[in-house]
């Protein structure tokens, strides 16, 4: 974290090498996030480039009392929102429960059922998750990726998305249960 602050401080003084170190540090987490949320690798790389450019141009607005990664991902998240708005993709309301065509997605009690995951090895499960992830609503998918791919804490995600921590926890849980259900159906 301190290293990030030092790099930002050097970049602000005109040291391009320092910003390149920031790019090298965050290129993979950022592309993983964008790729998993958009489901398109090439688009993810283009977005990542645009986001680094935005970050570079607004580096003076970064306040060092916040984590740089949180600041960068906030820019990325807003960039995606703009992209979805332009493409007029459906967004998920935070207040509405997510429902499947066949009814309620979220069972309120532990549902042992026929264990689907045991049928597959871990690698197979990952493959299934990747496929199922594409069918999860973008808003939920993004929170799931921030939590489990980028390993942000719930508090950090709340900060990035400007949502209450409880809402983030609930949404990540919904995404996971939705994934489980989609994998079960596959």
């Amino acid at each position, binding site marked *: 974290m301190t290293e990030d602050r030092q790099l930002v401080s050097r970049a602000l003084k005109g040291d391009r090498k320092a910003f390149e170190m920031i790019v090298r540090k965050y290129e993979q987490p950022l592309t993983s996030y964008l790729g998993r949320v958009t489901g398109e690798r090439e688009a993810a790389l283009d977005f990542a480039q645009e986001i680094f450019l935005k970050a570079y141009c607004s580096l003076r607005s970064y306040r060092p009392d916040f984590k740089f990664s949180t600041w960068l991902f906030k820019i990325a998240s807003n960039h995606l929102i703009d992209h979805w708005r332009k493409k007029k993709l459906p967004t998920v309301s935070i207040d509405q429960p997510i429902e499947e065509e066949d009814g309620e997605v979220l069972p309120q009690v532990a549902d042992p059922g026929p264990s689907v995951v045991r049928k597959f090895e871990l690698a197979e499960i990952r493959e299934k998750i990747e496929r199922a992830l594409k069918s999860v609503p973008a808003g939920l998918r993004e929170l799931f990726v921030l939590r*489990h791919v980028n390993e942000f804490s719930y508090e950090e995600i709340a900060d990035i998305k400007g949502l209450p921590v409880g809402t983030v926890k609930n949404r990540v*849980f919904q995404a996971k249960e939705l994934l489980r259900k989609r994998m079960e159906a596959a």
Partner: protein
Amino acid sequence: MTSCPRPEELYLYLEGELGPYDARKLEEHLECCAACRDALAERRLLHEAFTSLPPFEVPDGFARSVMDSLPEPEAVKAGWLNPLLAGAAALAVGLLGFYVLTGTSLVEVLVAVNGFLGSAVARIAPLAVKTLKLGGVLLKVVGDLLALGFEGLGTFTRLLGREGTVAVLGLVLLLTILAVFGARRFLHQGEQS
């Protein structure tokens, strides 16, 4: 036996996000509920898969292409050193030009410049000393006037007594408020017109 936990609690338990009390309660429940043990095992496997998704591959030259797309950095804000260096360089160029054009040696030019600066300082120094002396005298006069004013005010309040002082202060305050509001109104009217 406690009631079965919600699936959300199972995930939070696996992530270590459940509080110690709730975690203990859940563990106690798991000891006597096979269905929840199965549900937890399933979520554990999923959780493992969620947290081990492979990262996206980034092409080798990606960082380079990002750097190439960035605009040129703003010129570094000049500190005190740059103007000083620029001044020195301009002086050196000026002296060199003077030498080339007039044929006067650099040493003579430097001596002449030094003589000019010396005479300027010799003329300015007495003036600066006089200004400082005058400033000292002015400060003393202002200090004496203020002391006199405070003394007069003390005598005046003693003569008036407590009630009289309060009455005069109230009157002064009232007049100040009226003056301020009057001025604001006057200015406001001025803006409107």
